[in-house]
Structures are given as C-alpha cells and as structure tokens.
C-alpha cells in the first residue's frame, strides 16, 4: 500500500476534488492510501510518504518551508494543477506593486504578508512529475498512479490542444468561425473541452514552453486581437494561467537567448 499525502498551498482545492474523485471512484484504492491531508483526514504531522501530491502556488515563506519539508519526506513528488506548475491565475498580480494590490483589497494591508509574485512549486523544489490542468483531469491522475504502481510513469508528450481537437474530429473554431482560441499554445490534457462546446480555448492548462519564444508569442497574441480578443483579457491566459512560461520567455529574450 503506497502512502500518499495531499498538500494544499495557495489555491482553490479544485485539483484536490479531482484527487478525491480519483481515490474513491477507481481501482487505485487497492494500492494507495491517503495518510496525510488536512482536508480529508485528522492526521497530525506529515511523516515519510511514498507520494506527495501538491496543489497550489507558494505565496509566503511559510509555504516555501513547507514545500521543502515535503520534498525531504516524500520519495515521489507530483505537482498537480496550473497553480503548482505555472503559478496560477493569481500570478496576474506579478507586474503590480504588491502594496497597491494589498491596499485595494484590505483596509489594513499591513496585516497581510504575501509575495508579490506567487511561485510555482517547481521554482522551489525539484518535482518528479507535473500534471497540468485547472483543474487537473482526474482520469489522468488515475493513469499516473496506476502506472506508478506498476513501476513506470506515463509517457510525457509535449503537445497542444490542437492535437486533441484533431483526434476528436472537432472543427477548428478559429478556422470555421473566426473565434479566437489559444489552443495552438496551450498544453493539452483537458480533452479540448472548450472547442467541443463551441468556444475558444482560454489557456487554463498553461502555455507550452517548447518551440515557442517571445516573438512568436507576441505575433500569436496580435493575431488573436485581430480576431476580436481583448488585450487585457489575453493577459488572463498569458500572464495568469501561463505565467511561468511567459516569464521564462520574457527573461530569455532579455538575456539574449533564442
């Protein structure tokens, strides 16, 4: 029986709900048991575990310490969800002065201690696997755990939502209806839900980091604006859900790489 711990940082618990689904509605309960989770059990301190699933981004020093201690006590760490891998939608505040942000929401901002830029956990520790999604796909988690119990891991395929649309035989919403869609730069895994409902993808699984640079990203954004997407709205996808990739590409451009 593999021991699993479930950690939540700064996030909405949506990925944890998918974990709950995976853990109670599939056969993996034969091999896995949740020994630590503040949401699901009364366990005290976290001990040594086989697998740690971490949801959420790191917003303060206390969470950074927690993530490092989890890494030390877990044989295998999986980052689950866009918050843990990309920083999450809360990363949209990264370009603003944190004091202004705090002051806009709290009458007494001095009591609130939080980073200006939320960190994906991949900035703090090495992870063994990253499962994208907002929320993650519960079936993908079941797949991961089934293969892990057999001594392997899922093959990581770097592809975008377009590939999923093609496999499902979905009509491209951009080509057929002129709808702005971020599918061409968004990490696959959702099953192309938005295009199957006739709307454009808004990038909630994060932006791919291979075969993309700052110029290509800007050219693509300009094309989406031509199709009717608002520039401010695009920020939600690029500087929000895709923050980690966006900041990597921007930094790479500044450093003169690519």
């Amino acid at each position, binding site marked *: 029986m593999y021991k699993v711990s479930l950690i939540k940082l700064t996030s*909405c*618990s949506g990925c944890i709900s998918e974990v709950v689904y995976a853990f*109670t509605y599939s056969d993996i309960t034969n091999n896995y048991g949740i020994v630590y989770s503040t949401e699901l059990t*009364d366990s005290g301190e976290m001990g040594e575990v086989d697998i740690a699933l971490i949801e959420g981004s790191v917003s303060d020093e206390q*969470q950074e310490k927690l993530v490092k201690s989890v890494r030390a006590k877990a044989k295998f760490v999986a980052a689950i969800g866009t918050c843990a891998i990309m920083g999450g939608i809360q990363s949209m505040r990264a370009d603003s002065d944190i004091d202004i942000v705090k002051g806009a929401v709290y009458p007494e901002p001095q*009591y609130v201690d939080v980073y200006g830029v939320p960190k994906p956990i991949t900035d703090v520790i090495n992870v063994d696997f990253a499962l994208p999604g907002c929320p993650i796909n519960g079936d993908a988690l079941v797949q991961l755990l089934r293969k892990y119990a057999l001594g392997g891991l899922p093959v990581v395929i770097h592809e975008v939502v377009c590939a999923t649309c093609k496999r499902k035989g979905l009509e491209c919403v951009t080509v057929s209806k002129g709808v702005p869609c971020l599918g061409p730069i968004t990490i696959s895994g959702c099953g192309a839900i938005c295009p199957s409902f006739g709307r454009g993808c808004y990038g909630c699984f994060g932006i791919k980091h291979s075969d993309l640079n700052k110029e290509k990203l800007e050219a693509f954004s300009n094309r989406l604006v031509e199709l009717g997407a608002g520039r401010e709205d695009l920020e939600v996808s690029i500087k929000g859900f895709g923050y980690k990739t966006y900041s990597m590409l921007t930094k790479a451009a500044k450093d003169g790489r690519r």
Partner: protein
Amino acid sequence: MKTVLTRVEGEGSAVIVEREGYVDSVIYEVSEAPRFFEYLVIGKSPERVVDIVSRICGICGTSYNFVASTAFEKCFSVDVDYEVATLREALHLAERVKSHILHLFYLNLPDLVGTASFEGFLQRNPELARDAVAVLAWSRKVMEVLGGRMHNVVNMKIGGVHKVPDKSDVERVAKELGSVMKSFLEFASFTLCLRDSDESAWKTDVRVHQASLYTPTYEYPHHGDKVLMDGDVYSLSEFYGNTVKYQQVPYSTAIHCRIKGVESYVVGPIARFNHFYSSLHKEVRDFLRAHGWEAPLGSVKQSYVARIAETFDALLTLERFFDAFRGIAVPRTATPAKGEYVCEYAVEAPRGILYHKYVVRDGKIITCDIIAPTTQNLAAMNDIATATLRGRRVDPNAVAMVKKIAVAFDPCLSCSVHALPVKIIKAYDNIAGV
C-alpha cells in the same frame, strides 16, 4: 493553544484563548494566502470575468460563474431563453449535490461516526460508502454533460450557455438517476438515524441571526436579489451596503461580517432550511419526518440534516429538468454595452449567500465586490464556539468540539478570503488609475 483545522476546505486553525486552564474564547484563524481576485478582475471584460471568478472556489466554482453571468445579464438587459436558464440552474444544482455529498461523506460523517477520516468508515461499511460515492460520481457526469467538467465549467456565459447539450447525452445521465436516488436515500437514511451523544453541549444562548435569499413566489432559495433575515426582507444593496458591517482582524486574512457591527449571522443550508422548509418537495419532508426530523433545526451541528434535505430536493428538481429537456434552445450572444453600470446579484451557493457587485464602464470592470458565504459565517463561528465552550476545561474533548463546530459549518476557507468592504470602493479611483 492552537490547533490546525482538519476536514474543512482550505487552510485555517482554531485558537483557544485560555484562562487558568479553562476556555475563555475561541477564535478561528484563516491562514489561506490571499489571491486578490477583486484586484485581478479590474480592467478585464465581463465575459472573461465569468471564467476568472470560478477559480475562487474549487467546490462551488459554478456558483461564481452563475452569479457573475446573471449579474451582468440583469444590468445589460440581456434576456436568457427559458430552457437555457433552467439548464444553468440544473448545472448549478448538480454542483450543489456534488458539494453537499462531498461534505456529508468525506468531511462531516467521520464526526458523526467517530472515525478520523472517510477511509475508516469505508472499511467498516463499504456498501454505504459506495452509495455515497455513487452520488458524487453521478454529479460529476451531469456537470460534464451540462457544463464541460466537474469544476471550472466552460458552458456558462453572459447571455446563457455556449452550447445546449445533445438530448442523447442528457438522457444518458438521466437514466442513472433512479439508481443514484436509491443509493442516496440509503446513505441519507443511515446518516439521519445517527444521534450524537453530546447533543446538549451544543445549546447556546448567543444571538445569531439567520439569512437566506428570498423570492416573492416562496421558492426554495436558489438565486435572487432579496435577502430574508428575522422576518425582514432587504434588497441586496441595503443588506450588504448598510446592514452588514465589515471588520478586518489582524489574525486572519479573511474579513468578518457583523449585523450593524455587533451580532453575527449565519448563511447556508440551516438558514435556507429553517426559512423555507415548507417549500421543499413533499417527498423530502416526508422522508425527514419518517426519520424524526423537522424544521426548525436548532443548532448548526444539525446542518447535515439540511444538507441531506437539499440534496434530495435537488435530485428531484433535476429529475423534472431531465423529463422536460428538449435540447432545442439556441444559445444567444450578448454584446457589451457602452456606459457605466452597477451589476449586482446573489446566488445560494452550497454554503450560503454568495454576493457579487461589479461596476462596469465601457465594457471593462472598474471595481469588484465579492462576499462569499464563509466570510459571512466566520463571526458566527467564533461567537458560537466561544459561547458553547466558555468555562469548560481545556482538554482534548474541548479541542475536538472546537474542530467539530468548524466542520459543521462546512466552511470554505479558500473562498472566505474575499470580501471588499463597500466603504473603500472609492479608494479604487486613485489606485488603479482609472
């Protein structure tokens, strides 16, 4: 002494202030790091905001999509087709089922049967556990068909939905409702028969009001723009702008709500149940009475009865929706309007009244005000826990009770970190440079 809250959504702790070994007061601390959604939406279009706010909560995200869409529709005067409107309500009720069964089985039941987690109960009673899980799995399928996925649904927009599902997909999930209802009633019957030993320990004299939404047609609360509290009906702006006062406390990232700054109030299943018990389907009331339960519920600890009633009621409403579904409605598109608008609306999320207020100018959000249900319950949690436990010896039983009180409220701490007091909206004009 401080203890981390378990079996609640989100990160929080309970602090017991001691005086010579006895409980003086209890304070619930929300330690969730804020994500500043009221700031993030500034400058975005209303269409995008409908998707953004869903990320505030992982269990009741659809409530956020729903109330944001409806608030914008009402103020831009966008009409929604009747079948599309009932489709959205059905999706929202499917989420209510998901949220309630999640709480009843995974979070609350361990307290009622004395296990540390749902896994303990799963070992003792696998059949009933399977019954509960079957309801969760079915609610997930319904949400996938009507909304796209179980959380962060994609199928809600201003003006209605992006796509009306195929009749065959709806029939596929509708077929399972019969057996799901049976499973639910098995589980519910068992849970309703549980009686706790420290029943009397929960009685308290603290004055706590109950608030729910109100419709003039006396329907069981779902969504609307009027609040009912102590027999008085308020408009949303009266209630949230004037009657409720907001306080930030130094130990918590969440803001507390108090009536006129003094007394606390409770929103959620118990308030809805006590106010509108007679609006529940007759089958629901008969089922409860057969197990010895009736309105009014006297203690928050009995909220699970209200959750069971609401889940049963939602399943019956969904049954009617499936029977009437034609799949012929055509979704409409709304065009954003020029000018300045104040858009506000409220929905009964699983945990209580969720209120949104946006100021929109020329198609962009200028300010945003979100009051989540748990934000409203935090003051009541403190008051009830303090009144119930004051004077007791600080021992493991007292600590356990402090945690049980939190669980009974079904708090959603990730949501609660969102409340922008109306009084500082004016500061926005200088801050965002708009």
